[in-house]
Every structure is written in C-alpha cells, then in structure tokens.
C-alpha cells in the first residue's frame, strides 16, 4: 500500500515538472516574476478573484511558482487553506474519536 502511494507521488511530480518545462511562460507568470500579478488582478479582475475560488487557486499557484520574493498574501492564503483542511480533518477525527470513545 505504501509503495503504491510513493509511486503515485513520483508520477505527479514528474507530470508537474514536464508541464513546467514544456509550457511557455504566460502573461500571469511574467507578472508574478515581477511581483505585479496580485496588483493586476485587484485592478482588472477583482470580482472574479473574490468570487471564483478556482481562479484564486490558479493565481496563487502562479505566484507560488514564479515569484522571487516572499509574498505574505500567498502565505496567508496557504495558511488559511491549511487551517481549513486541518479543521476539516480535526472535525472528522473528533467525530471518529467520539464514536470510538
């Protein structure tokens, strides 16, 4: 079971690497390299960024991959997501713990 899990992770990393190599640099990635992507999004597509979660994920992913300095909004976003997933995990585990107590 554990071996299968490791194989899957390797495959995912490989696919990500191949995508990174093959894909050409986009407008968003160039903006992220310049630390101007979030400003651009707030300026031109703020409604979509606030309402569309997928779009938000995609934007922060581009920042995460291309930005050359620490972005606090990205860290807050990541920490928020981490808290959400941990709270979900905690919620489930607490239910399970309550059931097994």
């Amino acid at each position, binding site marked *: 079971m554990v071996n299968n899990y490791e194989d899957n992770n390797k495959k995912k990393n490989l696919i990500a690497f191949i995508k990174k190599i093959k894909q050409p640099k986009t407008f968003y990635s160039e903006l992220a390299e310049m630390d101007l992507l979030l400003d651009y999004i707030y300026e031109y597509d703020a409604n979509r960024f606030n309402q569309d979660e997928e779009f938000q994920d995609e934007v922060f992913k581009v920042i995460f991959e291309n930005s050359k300095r620490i972005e606090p909004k990205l860290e807050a976003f990541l920490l928020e997501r*981490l808290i959400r997933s941990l709270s979900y995990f905690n919620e489930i585990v607490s239910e399970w713990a309550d059931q097994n107590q």
Partner: protein
Amino acid sequence: MGRPESISTEVFELYKKVIDLADKYDKLFKNIESKTKSFDDIVYDFESFARSVKDQLLSFIDKTRFEIDKSLEIYSKEKSKVSAFIDKIDTITNLHKETETFRNELNNLRSNYKQLTSQINESFQKFNSMLDSINEKSNSYLNKTVENLTSKIDQEISAKVDRDLKNLETQILIRHKILEGRVIEINNLLISTITLVEQVNRMRNNTLSSNNDDDLSNQFDNIKNLDKITQKHINISSEIEFKLDQISLTVKDFETRIVQEKKEIKKLYDELLEKDSNDFNKLRDKISNFSSELEKLERDLKKSKNVANTSIFIAILAILLSIIISAILK
C-alpha cells in the same frame, strides 16, 4: 523539493511538518483501513460462521423439536398407559378389598359349613338308617310283587297256551279224522271202480263187440274224475299238515320266547336285589316297560292265533269245496 522563493521558511517548514504528519496519518489510516478490512473479513467470517451456526442451530432446533414432539407423543401414550395402569391398580385394589371381604365371608361360611356338615352327618346317618329300613321294606315288597307278577304271568300264559293248543289239536284231530274217513270212503269207491273196470275189461275181452264202447268210455271218464278228486284230496291234506307244522313251529317259538322272557325277568329281579334303593324308581319303570312288552307279546300271540284260525278256516273251506265238487261230478 526545495523551498520556493515565494513563501517564508516558517510556512514552508510548517507545511513540511503538516505534510509529514499527514503522511504519518495516511499511513496510520491505511494501516487502520487494512486492519478494519481484516476486521471486516474476520467479521464476515464470524458472520458466516454465525450464520452457519445459526443454520445448524435452526436445524438442530427443528430436529430437537421433532424429537421433542415425538417424545411428547410417546410421553402422552405412556401417560395414558400409566393412567390405565393406575385405573387397573385401583380396580385391583378394589378387587383386593372385595376379596378380603369375600374371604371373611368365606371364613364365616366355612365355620357355618362345618357346623352344617356336622348336622348333615347326623341327619345323613339318620337318613341312611331310614333308607336302609325303606330299602328292606321296598325289597321285600318288590320281591313279593315280582314273584306274584311272574307267577301270574306264567300261569296266564301257560293256561292260555295250553287252552289254545288243546283247542287247535282237537280241531285238527277232528278234521283229520273226518278227512281220513273221507279218504277211506274215496278209497273204497276207488277199489269198487277198479273192480268194475276189471270186470268191464273182462267182458270186453270176451265179447269183442264194439256196441257198448260209449258206456265204457263214460265209465273211464268217471274213473279219471275220481282220480283227480283223490289227487286234490291228497294235496289238501298235505297243505293242512304243512299248516299244522307251521303252527307247531310258531308255538315252539313262542314257548322259547316265553322261556327267554322268564330268564330276563329273573335277571332283572337279581339286578333289583343287587341295586340300591335309589334305583327303585328306575326298576319300576323297567318293570312297567317290561309289562308293556309282555302285553305286546300277548297281542302278537293273539294275532298269530288268528292267522292260524284263518289258515284252518281256509283249509276247511277248500276241503268242503272239494267234497262239493266231487259230489257234483258224481
């Protein structure tokens, strides 16, 4: 994977730690999953085992129920048998009680019986003495009556037989003498006719004439007729002798039967003397039967006498007819 430039080391380390913990949790969950799977398998096995056990138990319960039903039926039958046996025992106890009461009654009866037997013995001795006296008296009376009866019967039978025989003998002698006289007359006639025939023959020889042939032929016819009459007379006399012989035979048979009856009477008399007084009535019946037989014999004797009389009458009639015929022919 190296730290990206977009996030700080703290966040990266935090993420790393979280990822490690997640990996550990994942491993644990997978382990738990595998264990739960194995538990599920065990539970499934247990469930299948429980199901099989349940089925076996159900079949066992069905079997045991069937056996219990059977045993209940047997039990009910045995119960009915036992109840019947108990009823029988009750009846037996009742019978035992009845037998006890009956035994007590029998004991009472036995004591009564002993008393009665003693009384009966006494009365029986008295009765025996009475019977002896009665027996002696009855024997003496019987002897007297039998002697009187035998003497009377003998006297009457001998008197009757003598009388009848004498009458028969006298009648037969008279008829025989008459017949002898007739025969002598017929013989004399025959002798005279024979002498006449001899004279005629002489005359015939002397004269040789045939004028008087008709008279001679008539005389010859008369002689022939006389021969026929004598023949008939001889036949009748022989028949009478035969009848007399028959009568004498019947009289002899009768005498022999009377002698036998006398012997039987003597035997009966001896038996009477030998037998007890209880057979007195039987002997009386026998004597009555014997007297009825004697009456029958007397009747038979009378009938035989009548037959003899009729035969004698027929013989006399035949003689008379022969005499009449001979007279007519003359």
